[in-house]
């Protein structure tokens, strides 16, 4: 364990890896700050540029973008009342109110500190649980994988968007999109309509860039293309003793909550920030202050969303299962570099595993430095006019998609999904369940078919194996509870109202 961490440091502290870590954190903060451009689009755009650097360096950089964006997202939430990225939605509530009361500095400061604590502690927890969990992971055969993916899909549907029916529709659409291409057992083409480039299935990157990158651009064309920044001097970034006293509990709870929810299938940064906000409001002695600029309402969720990024690496590395869109792209990247995430990765690629984990620790420290003194710079960045930013996003999307397979058809796929993304936004559908279902779809089908081969065609296999039975029962409950009046009420309060504000 100690040896492993030392190895990790020896890799993470190599000059080139430090540089890639820094670049990742910088880009992450940047896209986090810019509304509309999130870590998903940024990682997809940068993926092709990493082909010629070592796998460790590139995953270090891509992971840096992921957690860096969590830091950056809060800046926009606080100053513009517009979430820089999804996990910072809830931060707008109290963060912006604090800014209006002239306490923008404290809000930014506490969110950076909370993010740092959440990020680093979750990395330490990740180190502690990785090895024992890898031992357990071998017990996951095809039926368990099937059940786990079911639960992941259900949780994502449960949490995404306002209407459960809409989310379910998106998940089903995603499973269909995942069926396109050759099936992995008999190599027969399905739903390709004779387009040979579809034999390999729809590319994840063109779809994501279309839905998120281009969709965002199209949606922004409607607006007046300007952002109004709350005009205030950002000062007193270091929080006062009183602030720290009030936030300490929120930060500690946020860390634990975020990490655990990050590990769970379908959980992740967005969910944990909402749950943390709810918990803090419940526990607070002054619940009436929430929504009026309560510092706990910033500290808790900002800590939780960073802690969740650490947790989310556990199913990714140990089971090879991505449960959110970002880890789905990272999985694709790892496979492209010839790494096989799974229970054996600790044994086969310890250098990679520990190098990446330790780099996240280093990266969190870098981010604290990037965020505290440089906050003024990030604020300036928000003033880049959209008329300049949007065309750049389009250029990067097109170049990014083309450079992956040098295939012009994928640009068309991206444009089509751009239009779809725009329509989904207009009609209030959340794209996340669709993307996740599309990525999990082929694995899901494979696990189902393998399970049924194992059981000679009997579906009992899913109920006779304990892990799979528990997962499926939980998934089933999650599907029916939204119809229970009280849960429906809670769900409405936690998710719908929060997203209603924006």
């Amino acid at each position, binding site marked *: 364990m100690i040896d492993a961490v030392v190895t990790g440091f020896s890799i993470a502290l190599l000059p080139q890896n430090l540089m890639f870590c820094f670049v990742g954190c910088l880009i992450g903060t940047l896209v986090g700050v810019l509304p509309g451009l999130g870590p998903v689009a940024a990682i997809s755009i940068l993926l092709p540029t990493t082909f010629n650097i070592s796998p460790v360096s590139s995953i270090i950089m891509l992971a840096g973008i992921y957690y860096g964006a969590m830091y950056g997202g809060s800046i926009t939430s606080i100053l513009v009342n517009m979430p820089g990225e999804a996990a910072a939605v809830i931060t707008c509530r109290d963060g912006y109110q604090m800014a209006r009361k002239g306490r923008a500095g404290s809000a930014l400061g506490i969110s950076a500190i909370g993010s740092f604590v959440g990020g680093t502690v979750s990395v330490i927890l990740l180190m502690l649980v990785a090895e024992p969990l890898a031992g357990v992971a071998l017990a996951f055969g095809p039926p368990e994988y099937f059940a786990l993916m079911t639960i992941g899909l259900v949780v994502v549907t449960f949490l995404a968007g306002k209407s459960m029916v809409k989310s379910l529709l998106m998940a089903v659409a995603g499973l269909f999109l995942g069926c396109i291409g050759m099936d992995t*057992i008999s*190599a027969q083409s399905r739903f390709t309509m004779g387009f040979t480039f579809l034999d390999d299935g729809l590319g994840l990157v063109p779809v994501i860039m279309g839905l998120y990158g281009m969709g965002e651009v199209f949606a922004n064309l409607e607006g007046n293309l300007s952002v109004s920044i709350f005009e205030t001097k950002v000062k007193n970034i270091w929080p006062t003793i009183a602030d720290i006293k009030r936030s300490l509990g929120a930060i500690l709870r946020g860390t634990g909550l975020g990490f655990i929810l990050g590990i769970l299938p379908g959980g992740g940064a967005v969910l944990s920030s909402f749950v943390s906000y709810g918990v803090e409001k419940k526990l607070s002695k002054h619940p009436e202050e929430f929504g009026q600029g309560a510092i706990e309402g910033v500290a808790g969720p900002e800590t939780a969303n960073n802690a969740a990024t650490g947790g989310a690496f556990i199913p990714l590395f140990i089971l090879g299962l991505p449960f959110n869109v970002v880890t789905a792209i990272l999985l694709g990247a790892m496979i492209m*570099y010839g790494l096989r995430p799974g229970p*054996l990765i600790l044994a086969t690629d310890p250098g990679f595993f520990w190098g990446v984990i330790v780099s996240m620790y280093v990266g969190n420290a870098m981010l604290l430095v990037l965020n505290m003194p440089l906050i003024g710079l990030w604020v300036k960045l928000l003033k880049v006019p959209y008329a300049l930013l949007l065309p750049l996003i389009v250029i990067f999307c097109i*170049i990014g998609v083309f450079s992956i397979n040098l295939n012009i058809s994928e640009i068309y796929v991206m444009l089509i999904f751009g239009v779809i993304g725009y329509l989904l936004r207009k009609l209030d559908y959340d794209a996340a369940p669709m993307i996740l279902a599309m990525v999990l779809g082929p694995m899901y089908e494979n696990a189902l078919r393998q399970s049924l081969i194992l059981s000679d065609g009997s579906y009992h296999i899913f109920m006779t194996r304990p892990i799979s039975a528990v997962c499926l029962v939980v998934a089933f409950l999650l599907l029916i509870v939204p119809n229970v009046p009280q849960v429906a009420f809670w769900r409405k309060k936690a998710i719908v109202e929060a997203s209603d504000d924006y």
Partner: protein
Amino acid sequence: MKKVYFLVVLCCLVALPTLALGAGFPAKQITIDIGYAPGGSTDLVIRALAAETSKILGQPILITNSPGAAGNVSLGKIKSQKPDGYSLSAAPTANVYRIPHMQKTPFKASDLVPIGEFSQYQYGVAVRSDSPWKTWEDFIAYAKANPGKIKYSTAGIGTGQHLGMEYVAQKNGIKWTMVPFKGGVEASMAVLGGHVDAISQTTEFKDHVLAGKMRMLLAWNDKPLISFPNVPTAKQKGINVQVATGITLWAPKGIPQDVVETLATAFAKAAQTDAVKTVCLKFDMPNDFLGPKDVAALVRTQDKVMGDFIKSLGLGIYSKK
């Protein structure tokens, strides 16, 4: 405005490599799509070979993986690529002459042109070391007495390791079930996790046998494995089935002959480097390289041999079930 200028220059720089097409092969990056999941024998061996070939040709070689259906997903994709030598697929030679007799394939042998065959897969059957089967005979005796009980994993339908097991089943009146995985690493994990009873696969299980977690019962190749000289071969056990094959680099039909020659020469040279030899040894594999004409001839004769053999057994597409 300076910033904008800088960004425009940056964009051009990013776009440049993709536009730099010139005369003479290879003038740009070559892509090799591997038919199996990362980390397995095909993947690691071809990655090593590609890295050395890239140095010889002076162009980068990008590796992608399209695992599924024993490598046929990759072959089905490659047949519709431009036959310019920049898109190649790496999959077992036997995929073209054996799998079509086992199940429907997304390509015909005539859609593909071999650049050359590299190495020979080494195969065997292994079980968990805590299983009751100490020898191949134990395993067969149990399988005979318990029809339908044994599940074994392979990297796909119609592979040699699958055919070998089905041949044994037929000769001994055994009924067992094959569970296909996307690669040897996943197939090995299924055994370690107790989800299947045995694995019939290339040597991805070698490290687990060396670590004492698995026991190898049989080698499919005619010669024993370098690492496990005491494990009996199929031939010694009177099993007369030809399983062995190598990894062929395939191009779509219509590829110019001189491009085939250039590629084959570079691969043959790369095959002899120490870096490639080291990776091959990890899987007990040799590092021979067979040129394009020899592979084409091999495919022609083997297609007939395998067709007759599988037909005589009534397996695969000739199955009457």
